[in-house]
């Protein structure tokens, strides 16, 4: 077993909300995103089932949210004023489970039970089974409308808690996404931030081939959302975008994160086959070596 999977970091260090984004913090979060990719790789390899590509593309985004930006209490997962994260692209949940475990919601040692019989870590997320999971996901398209409901509730409660919805780009094909955009804009839900993992690839091909959605920023803007576009693997840009979103008033925010499906493993990057593909032993070892190299570049 390679060293990346032997690193014990449970629960991992949290950089408190509001802290300055130091270069050490950025390097650490960037490095950890590779560590979590290796964990996901191991889970999917171990079960010979799961979705690697879309999990790898959100590694930095989820790391920034769970280890810095979200106000949460893993000891008290039901804390009413916690920030909410709606994980809409449910198939990528191996990364969500990995981040939740390292954040302290459940033991890291439970991660290898992913998709096994009797596990709490179901093939797609289910909130009553898994601490830290807010809503069920898997059927795509729910995130914006559910997030809007959460944002309306926060407003009724006069709470400052914020709502984040992680969306895939493929799921923007779904009509209910756009219903949710209308609702968010109608009520001016500035406590709601959608984050689109725009990796450009869905199950059977590129998004531009399967169902073109560009110009995506213009579409969200025309629905009266505040649009922020970033490079979705750049931790500094992610952290800044999350801060900027907090300051927008009167409109919901979308962060369109340009990412790479399968990020970090050369032979998986931008390949539709790695949406739901599972590695054999040779591929597993080659991928792990690349992810180690990815982590190392941030550890110098």
């Amino acid at each position, binding site marked *: 077993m390679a060293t990346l999977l032997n690193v014990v970091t449970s629960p991992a260090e949290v950089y408190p909300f509001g802290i300055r984004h130091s270069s050490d913090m950025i390097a650490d979060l960037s490095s950890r995103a590779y560590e979590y990719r290796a964990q996901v790789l191991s889970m999917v390899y171990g079960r010979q089932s799961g979705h690697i590509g879309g999990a790898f593309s959100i590694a930095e985004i989820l790391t920034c949210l769970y280890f810095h930006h979200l106000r949460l209490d893993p000891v008290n997962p039901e804390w009413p004023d916690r920030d909410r994260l709606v994980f809409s692209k449910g198939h990528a949940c191996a990364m969500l489970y990995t981040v939740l475990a390292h954040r302290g919601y459940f033991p890291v040692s439970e991660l290898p039970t992913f998709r096994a019989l009797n596990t709490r870590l179901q093939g797609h997320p289910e909130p009553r089974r898994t601490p830290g999971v807010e809503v069920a996901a898997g059927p795509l398209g729910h995130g914006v409308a559910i997030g809007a409901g959460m944002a309306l509730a926060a407003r009724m409660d006069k709470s400052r808690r914020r709502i984040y919805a992680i969306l895939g780009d493929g799921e923007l094909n779904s009509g209910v996404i756009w219903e949710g955009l209308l*609702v968010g804009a109608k009520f001016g839900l500035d406590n709601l931030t959608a984050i689109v993992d725009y990796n450009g690839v869905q199950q059977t091909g590129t998004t531009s081939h399967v169902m073109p959605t560009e110009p995506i920023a213009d579409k969200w803007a025309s629905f009266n959302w505040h649009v922020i576009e970033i490079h979705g693997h750049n931790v500094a840009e992610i952290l800044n975008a999350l801060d900027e979103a907090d300051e927008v008033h009167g409109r919901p925010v979308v962060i369109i994160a340009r990412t790479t499906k399968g990020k970090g493993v050369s032979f998986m990057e931008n390949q539709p086959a790695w949406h739901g593909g599972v590695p054999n032993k040779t591929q597993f070892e080659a991928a792990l070596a690349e992810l180690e190299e990815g982590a190392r570049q941030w550890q110098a």
Partner: protein
Amino acid sequence: MASMTLNPLGESTLMRKAYGEALVELGRNRDDLVVLSADVQSSDFSSMFETAFPDRFINVGIAEPALVDVAVGLANAGKIPIANTFAFLFATRALEMVRTHLCYAGANVKLAGAYAGLSDSFDGPTHQTVADLAIFRSLPNITIVVPADASAVKKLLPQIAAWKGPVYFRICRNEVPAVFGEDYQPEIGKGITLIEGSDVTIVACGIMVARAVQAAWQLRENNIRARVVEMHTIKPIDTDLVTRCARETGVLVSAEEHSIVGGLGGAIAECLSESCPVPLERVGVNDAFAECGPYLELLEKYGLGVDAIVAAAERALARKAQESSKLICVAG
């Protein structure tokens, strides 16, 4: 028992207006109640809640999937959301949302399905709903409640709000006669015997309860003593009561403003086949789409009249006579 069922039946009133009034009353008693609509609040009278509590009313537009999903988000924060649209839209267009978040993940959302059965009569089969009970009944973890008159709406709605878990509440668009007297105290999950009888049991829900009562009176004139049970909770069905009626009266009739496939009659058939297999005659829409027209005439044409229940009871009794001879053969 006399004041449980009115004899004669009382004045007809709009069930949906009673629903609007019940929502307002509930809103006064519960700060956590939030009412949502897919832009039909003027149809189902949830506009009464909008007027009384504008800060707790959300119109998502003509977007039923978003209607349910927004309610799911509200429930996540501990609100009690009651989502409102036409019954068929919950059961068809928004079904995936209901299945995934309410039934599978347990989101504590209440659905009020308006214009159920054939009650949106002039709008025709596109708006009528005769499969919702079958559709929702096939899903785990959802409770299904069908009120029979205006007073039942007012007595059941607070229980639905307090119920832990998702509920589907099915409401008629039109005027329905008052069936229940002051002693009527429904409890979710428990059927109620309205009229005692030993020859046949008629189990009814919704607007068919009044008709079942009238059918029992008519049967009495022919010296047939029909028991009438109101089954306002379709899921979970009161299996103990159904089984007891089967044992005590030997034959049953179901009556519902729904397809004979998979609704109240289906639930009773499943129950009987496991606990006490006696004959059952199902009164309902005979696996068909109806058409447009005046409500009461439509109910007659599609087999939901009082006479249809009487005829079903007589068929059931004839089968009981045959079955008893067969049973003797088997036993011998």
